[in-house]
């Protein structure tokens, strides 16, 4: 049976520590753009931890919410792409094919979550920082869109491995970089087609909901609400 990769985000566990943000950067060769470009709104974070303030002193309250590509089943970014650079795979991933991207940036406009990022310039690494680059992941060049891939390089590797040693993957063997790093285990990644997988069980939680679900994008990421004492 084909996989259907999804994620559950427990907002009651998430502490906004941003370990996931750095993990993603390290795994996926996401460049740092430097202060000038960051100020110009070109900083790239495939996963970001949104923080929202509520109320005022002394009753101020703050909530964190990690936002990454929701890998929607009805993704607005896909139909608008004129070249199929952004398209849906058999396993339900929202693929972004860099070499096919011509940079219309339409997908980024259509994405309600603003999780797509554009290479405004060629990325650069001051030598020898480039020695850290992950050889399993492309280094994107100027003019192409990029976004969270659910660590497709890990998914592919795991699948190749599974076929090689002819045994199915176990739930929890395969983790995205963010889920792997999450110290409070707020991010859980897995196969939604496996009803017993941790992610499936969490996705069925009564606390669960989907980000902007009412837009009909059918995200494959479920957010479990943060509970409060009172």
């Amino acid at each position, binding site marked *: 049976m084909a996989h259907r990769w999804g994620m559950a985000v*427990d907002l009651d*566990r998430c*502490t*906004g*520590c*941003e*370990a996931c*943000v*750095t*993990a993603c*950067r*390290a*795994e996926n060769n996401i460049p*740092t*753009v*430097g*202060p*000038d*470009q*960051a*100020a110009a709104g070109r*900083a790239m*974070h495939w996963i*970001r*931890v949104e*923080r*929202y*303030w509520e*109320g*005022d*002193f*002394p009753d*101020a*309250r*703050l*909530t*964190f919410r990690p936002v990454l590509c929701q890998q929607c089943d009805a993704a607005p970014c896909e139909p608008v792409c004129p070249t199929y650079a952004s398209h849906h795979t058999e396993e339900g991933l929202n693929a972004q094919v860099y070499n096919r991207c011509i940079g219309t940036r339409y997908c980024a406009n259509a994405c309600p979550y603003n999780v797509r990022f554009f290479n405004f*310039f*060629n990325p*650069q690494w*001051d*030598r*020898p*920082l*480039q*020695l*850290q*680059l992950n*050889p399993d992941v492309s280094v994107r060049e100027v003019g192409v869109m990029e976004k969270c891939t659910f660590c497709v390089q890990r998914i592919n590797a795991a699948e190749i491995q599974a076929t090689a040693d002819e045994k199915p993957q176990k739930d929890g063997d395969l983790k995205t970089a963010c889920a*792997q*790093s*999450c*110290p*409070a*285990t*707020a991010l859980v990644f897995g196969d939604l087609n496996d009803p017993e997988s941790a992610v499936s069980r969490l996705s069925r939680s009564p606390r669960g909901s989907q980000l902007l679900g009412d837009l009909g994008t059918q995200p494959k990421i479920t957010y479990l609400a943060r*509970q*409060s*004492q*009172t």
Partner: protein
Amino acid sequence: MDRRIFLKVTAVTGTSATLASCGNPEHAIIRFIPEEEHVPGVAEWKPSLCPLCQAGCGVIVRVMEGDAEVVRNGQAGVMRMGLAKKLEGNPAHPISQGKLCGRGQAAIQIAYHPDRITQPLKRTGPRGQGQFQPVTWDAAIAELVAQLDGLVTSNNQRGLAFLKGGGRGQRDDLVSQFLDRFGAPPAVSFDLFNYDVLRRANLLSFGREQLPTFDLARSGYVVSFGADFLGTWNSPVAQHAGYGQMRQGRRGVRGAFVQVEPRMSQTGANADEWVPARPGTEGVLALGLAHVLLSARLRPADAAGRAGALIDGWNAGLTGYTPADVEKQTGVAAARIERMARALVEQPPGVAMIGGAPLAQTNGLFAALAVNALNALLGNVGQPGGVSFMPQIPATVTPRRSSPPERRTLQAVTAAILAADPSPVQVLLVDSTNPVFASPSGWRTREALLKVPFIASFGSFIDETSVLSDLILPDHAFLESWVEGRPESGAAVPVATLAPPALRPLHQTRATPDVLLQVASRLNKPLDFPWQTFDEMLMAAFATLPAPSADTDAWTAAQQQGGWWGAADAAGQTRPGGPAAQAEPAGRTTQAGGTNQGGRPDAAPVRALEAQFDGEPAAYPFHFLPYASHAFLDGSLAHLPWLQELPDAMTTAMWSSWAEINPQTASKLGIAEGDVLEITSTQGSLRTPALLSPGIAPDVIAMPVGQGHETFTRYASGRGQNPIKILASAAEPETGALAWAATRVRVTRIGPPNGDLILFAGEMREHPHEHEHER
């Protein structure tokens, strides 16, 4: 970097681009025969140890083959070698449990940093000008040896001083032995955000001079006094794991958590209740809680035992700490105090923790003792869901001096240097600390160092301290060297992390412990160490540990799994070993530091002290609260671009420094978001952008530490402002620890936004319009 330069570098490209793409031969570059074999394209995971904070998380390094530009016998070329690609938590490690914080993961950039010092340097220009010339290792070591021999001949061994960061393990042990054998005073360790006060308090209350370990996974109600335990305090990764469990790990039970602090930290943001108590009154609040428990007979006074006895008026039931009195002092409503106190017993196990700013007050020790007493009263010490002390392995392989070493704070040393002429310190060795940046200007650290005739630094980067040195003997990056650590908190079992080098050195650097051993052997009167190299010492140390299994010994096992640790108990749960559980679980364990073998100093009960603040409230109306930056800690990580571009969790600021101010206060002072402020204390002033935050008390100005480096690599130099500079040099009297939260300031608007504040987020509220309506 202006746009022109930016554009220039944007277009320029390197040879690796060519290597990767179509192969046109690059005759220019020599290729060396690889020194090790790797299967190309296949990742190998090697254990290592995160060096960034005292938590001591065990990590695993993803190593893959790649082409690196290296220098071999004086010739530059390319070599195929194993390269570190990613750091993850070591799943087998009791503290990190397979997880790693963002800072730890960014540590990989230290190894590959473009501004790393690649070979020994000798100062050429005047001090502080940063003019150095490369020298060979032999020359460099010879010079240092000559300096030390000089001290010996002039019979002034005590003229040698060693300045190091906080840290425990064989490396620090080697240093102290080196100094001991040489006849020099013990090393001075300096760390802005140190734990001296807390350790002292735990020594007094529980006889353990050690950081506490919290079993959050099983806690029911947590009250944290300023402890940023989900950010930068104590053992964040381990505490995160516990926290996740506490919230959603147990069926039907969700642990509650209250954060007491005047400025909401990232940890505080996760609390169910945020209690902005007045700065410096945390101890009083703790005793207020205790008073409720006592007066309501919820817990017997004697349950607190010795920890309670340390508090003046404890057995009298803490009269004078009625909720009403406490409300007056702390500004926390009496009813709220009542409620919190009851919750501590009604949602067991209740536990309190204290750290950060409350301990950085002139009455920090009292606050810590008060919280200890509260925990003792709650009877959670050494109990599941409570506070406990991690069993320790003796941090030495050779018998220590009988007498505990005298403690010297950096402040004392600099004072001594500045007082006497010539300087009592003739030769200063500096290792992994940057006091010139991280100490208040009142200490005049820079002037003091300039007065020292000879300074040698082991730093890997030119920072504010190493730029003053005459000789730089660059250390390996942690990934290139043997690493060993003995964490004092974060797990229930004794832990000694150990790992061999994960990669070959990229540059002409040498591991500092090896350098010390070489120096020791080359002195006219060699300090006869039993080992030639650091790994021999480590081997000796691990030989004394019991083998985990019959077919292997501790040493080899440790190298494979990334360390040695006692087994968790049968239940698989890590039960914390409290003071009661000294002997268990595995092997020889004893109390920390060896400074308080057996006995404990009997201390007189302490009376509540009013926190003293520098600066007249009239002239300096605001409390100034510098806090450990989520990304940079005390500033030692400001050179890592990943962390510079990491949006701050609370403010989403990147590449910036800022001052947080309450919106009401701001509107009173006519300050808008991003406006340039001038913050003035009795010690001086600085200018930085304002950031309006509802999560800060109206009488507090908070500012993250970490930016404002003068010289610290291309990424940090000249970026932002350093709040430490304007701190008063107030100290906690008992320990002499810097009271970095005891300064008052005044704030004036200088001008409109100047673009220094770079935010990632657009809006701070999910429904900005509705919020405007409410107000």
